[in-house]
Structure formats: structure tokens, C-alpha cells
């Protein structure tokens, strides 16, 4: 079976710093993949390469049968990849509803249709009643949900969530995890989550990919990956790994 997304030894360096070094991975249709790794491991760089904000120096990225290695972000969105941002990037001076309308207009030119879809997604993400608020005035949790709604409005096949749960309270995190599950189950969207919080990623993901210093060091089922010696070393340091 052809994978939905396939990275073939993608390498990206900034000057002398190798942010991603020959990273190969696949995401199958219907999967939730967790992408983890310590700070500076190259997770966001990988996201930026997949979504076209950066292009790999060498290697290839194939999405849904199309080579998107050097494609621009808006074309990649059109192909069916949507993302959220580590630092939220809502359209601050537009209302919450208008933010989502902008996403929905990717698939229709009719404002009324886009508005209807935006209202559905506002409901779906649990933001009903906040549609007319300027996005800049929303709480962090709502801004993150708004980004997810806006991304979903573009009808993606693959959704990339860059730390959608960092900075949230435990209650908000639980709600966010529930939302990600519902996106997967009810909308049939494949998902890749970048996350620091292990307690979130492990139960949520079907498969976990671990990056360390730009290199993929593990790729497998969550319970296997947490026992991997290299992963433990990357997260907890040398001494713990030898015990």
C-alpha cells in the first residue's frame, strides 16, 4: 500500500546545524502518529518541510502520490495537508468565525457555504458562542482550538498538530485529546502530533516516531518505543539508560 505521506531521507541544515538528517518516515491513511523528541530535535523543522515553509536540502517528500518536496505551502494545503502552529497564529483582527471562513474558502468560493461550514466547525470544536469575538481576545486554549477548526475547514487528509496541547491546563488538555480523537474518528483525518507531554502522546498515538539531534532514533508502537534504550538515553541522559 502506498503511504499517505512518505519522507525519503529528508535532510535540512541551517548553516552548520543539521536540523534533520536523512529522516525517513511514513504516515498511513487513518493513522495517528506521534512525533516526539527533546527540544531542538528537529520536529518543527520536519513539519515546516512537510508543509512547504522550508524545503529539504536533499531527500524527497511524497504526499498522496504527489512529490511535494519543493511545493509552496498554499499548494500543499490544496493537496490536503493542514497544520497548526507551535506559537498560535490566529488572524487576530478577524473574528473567530471569520478565521474559519478563510479556511473553508479553500474549498468553495461561496461565502454563505463557507460560513455554514465555519459554524459547524465552531460547534465541533466546542467554541459555539465565541464566533463573533475577535480572535486576538480569545484564551490560549480557544486560540489553539480555533487553529484546529481553521485547519479542518480546508478539508485536509492529513492534519499536523504542532504542540496543540502545550501550555494548556490539565482539563483543557483532556478536552484537546478528546477533540483529536473525534477528528480522527468522525472526520477520518490522519493525524501527526508533535508533543512534549508523553502522557498525551502515548495513549493517543498508534505509532510514535522519535527524533534526537535531527536523527530518527525510534519508530514503532508507543509501548515499545518507551522501553527503547536510545529513547530513554535521549530523554533522561546516559546514566539512566545503563541501569
Amino acid at each position, binding site marked *: 500500500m502506498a503511504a499517505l505521506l512518505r519522507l525519503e531521507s529528508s535532510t535540512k541544515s541551517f548553516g552548520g546545524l543539521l536540523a534533520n538528517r536523512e529522516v525517513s518516515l511514513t504516515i498511513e491513511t487513518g493513522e495517528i502518529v506521534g512525533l516526539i523528541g527533546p527540544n531542538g530535535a528537529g520536529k518543527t523543522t520536519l513539519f515546516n518541510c512537510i508543509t512547504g515553509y522550508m524545503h529539504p536540502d536533499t531527500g524527497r517528500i511524497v504526499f498522496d502520490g504527489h512529490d511535494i518536496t519543493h511545493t509552496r*505551502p*498554499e499548494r500543499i494545503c490544496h493537496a490536503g495537508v493542514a497544520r497548526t*502552529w507551535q506559537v498560535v497564529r490566529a*488572524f*487576530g*483582527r478577524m473574528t473567530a468565525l471569520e478565521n474559519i471562513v478563510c479556511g473553508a474558502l*479553500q474549498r468553495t468560493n461561496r461565502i454563505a457555504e463557507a460560513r455554514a461550514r465555519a459554524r459547524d466547525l465552531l460547534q465541533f470544536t466546542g467554541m459555539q458562542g465565541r464566533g463573533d469575538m475577535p480572535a486576538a481576545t480569545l484564551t490560549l486554549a480557544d486560540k489553539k482550538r480555533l487553529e484546529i477548526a481553521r*485547519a479542518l475547514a480546508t478539508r485536509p487528509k492529513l492534519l499536523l498538530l504542532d504542540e496543540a496541547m502545550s501550555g494548556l491546563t490539565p482539563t483543557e488538555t483532556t478536552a484537546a485529546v478528546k477533540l483529536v480523537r473525534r477528528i480522527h474518528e468522525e472526520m477520518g483525518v490522519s493525524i501527526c502530533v508533535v508533543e512534549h507531554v508523553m502522557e498525551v502522546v502515548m495513549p493517543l498515538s498508534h505509532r510514535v516516531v522519535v527524533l534526537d539531534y535531527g536523527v530518527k532514533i525510534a519508530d514503532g508502537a508507543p509501548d515499545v518505543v518507551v522501553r527503547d534504550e536510545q529513547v530513554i538515553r535521549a530523554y533522561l541522559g546516559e546514566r539512566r539508560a545503563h541501569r
Partner: protein
Amino acid sequence: MARIALVIGALAAILYPIPLQLQGTTYYQTVGFLVLVNAMLGLGWNVIGGWAGQFDFGPQVFFGIGAYTAALLYVKLGVDAWLGLLGGVVVAAVICAVLTYPLTRLRGHYFAISTVAIWMIVQPIGATWEYIGAAQGLFIPVKTHNTILGAALSLQFSGPTKALGYYYAALVLFAVTLALMAWVERSKLGFYFRAIRDDQEAAEGIGIDSRLYKVIARSITAAVFAAAGVLYAFWALSVFPEQVFELNWSTLPIMATVVGGIGRLWGPVLGAAILIPISQIMSTMLGTGPLAGRGIDLIVYGLIIIVIAAFRPTGLLSLPWARWFRRERAVVA
């Protein structure tokens, strides 16, 4: 409430010059003409500067291109003014698209500087190109028409009804521009422009081609400036570089837009309706008499703008009018 205000405003704009005309004056019709021209230019600038959030300080280039195109068509080929207006609009929009596409690689201050740079390049071209009359420019021969219809159809008003005729011509073009902008604001374009203004990366992430939509935004601005340029050319009966590429063709509308409310449909209209009469009144009140020629009028005018900008940087329309009138619900633009 909003609809009633619109009807009252439209009636006031239509009836305004009639009592003045009956009194036999023409001065205030010309002030009205200038208000409408600047309101129209402000509406045009609001697209690139307000909605798309890209600071363009060189739209006067397209004011000039519109004026030259229509004047050339009229003088060299005898093409009618309104057809010339259409031609000027198309030529300006196309040239703008070609010039702006490479500029969209630049962002923020660098985009702003590059629009000024293009204006600086265009000026000497206009001043030295023989075919378009170089520094002398082009003169549009007056054609007198016996009927109002004939005058209106050729955009050539003269004699005691000249100011009145051009007032209504400006009103028509202003109304068309306003209607077009109201449509743009609510269309996909309006959403995409504002998305790019608020966050270009995020906009690209949801499938918006930021470079394409910036080019579209600036071409709409250019089209409006070109239309106003054509109107001005036939009013002035001449087109020469110093006049049509004058910096005031962008600074006045930009100030009007900022004072009225940047990024709001009616912002430039309100701003022009306030600033242009003030500048005219100041120059008649303070520009004559013992203080004449010392620029006191411009100093006072500048101070008024500074006061508004300091106390309400988001523009007069952003004041809580709805709360003060307690009727309309708050609308966030």
C-alpha cells in the same frame, strides 16, 4: 438604521451642490469634487493598505498612468473619455500587476520603500518621454457641448456648470467605487486580504497564495487610482508629470483613510469628508490676509491630523459610536 443613514447620505450628496449653483457660486462644488476624488482614492488605497495591510506609498504612479492613457487615447486617436477611462483602468491594473509581482517578495518596510522607488523611477520617465509630451505634458482640447447629456457622455463640462458637472461625474465614480469595495469586502478577496494582513504564514498554510492576492489587491488599488486620474485629467484639461505624479495624490487619501479608520469600508470616506474641507477652509481663512504665504494653513492642518492620530490611531470610525447611539449592535470590522 444603517440603511437610513445611507439614504440620507446619498440624498445629501446628490442635493448638496444645487442650492450653491442657484446662488451662482462654484467654489464649494469644487471642494465637493475634491472630497469625492480623495474619498475615492482613499477607498482604493484602503484595499492594499487597509485590508491587505501592505503599505503602498506609490499609488500615484497609477493615477498618472490612468490620466496619461486616457489623454493619449483622446488626443492621438480621438477615443472618448469614458472609453479612455476604461482603457486607463485596464492599462494601470496590468502595469501594476507586472510591477508588483516581484515586489511581493519584500515585506513590511521593504515593500513600502520599493513602492516609493517605483514612483521615483516613473517621474523622470514621464518628464523625458517625448511621445507623451515630456515635461510639457499633454493638453486636452476643450470641446463645448450644447446638451448636458453630450457633456456628460464626453466628460467635458465647461462654463458656469463646469464645477457642477465634474462634481456629479466624481459622485458617480465614487459611488461605483464604493459599491465595488463593499462587494470586495464581503467576498473571498476581502477575507483573503485580511488573512494575509493578520498573518501571512498562517494564511499560506490554509491555502492562500499570498503573492497572488497581494498583486490582486494592489491592482484593484491601481484601477481606482487610474479612474480618478482620468477624471482629474479631463477636469484639469491637461496631463503633465509634476501634476499627476504629485505625492499628494497618495498622502491625502492615506491620511484620510487613517484619520477615518483604516481597514474599514467607510473610513476613507469619513476621513476625506473631514480633512479636505478643513484644508480648503484653512487655506481660504489663513492663506489670505496678513498671514498669507507663510503656510499657517498647512501648519494648522497638520496639527489637526496629529491630534486625531495621537488620540485615536485606529481612526474616528473606531470610536464606540454604536454604544453612544445605543441602537446599532457593535460590528467588528
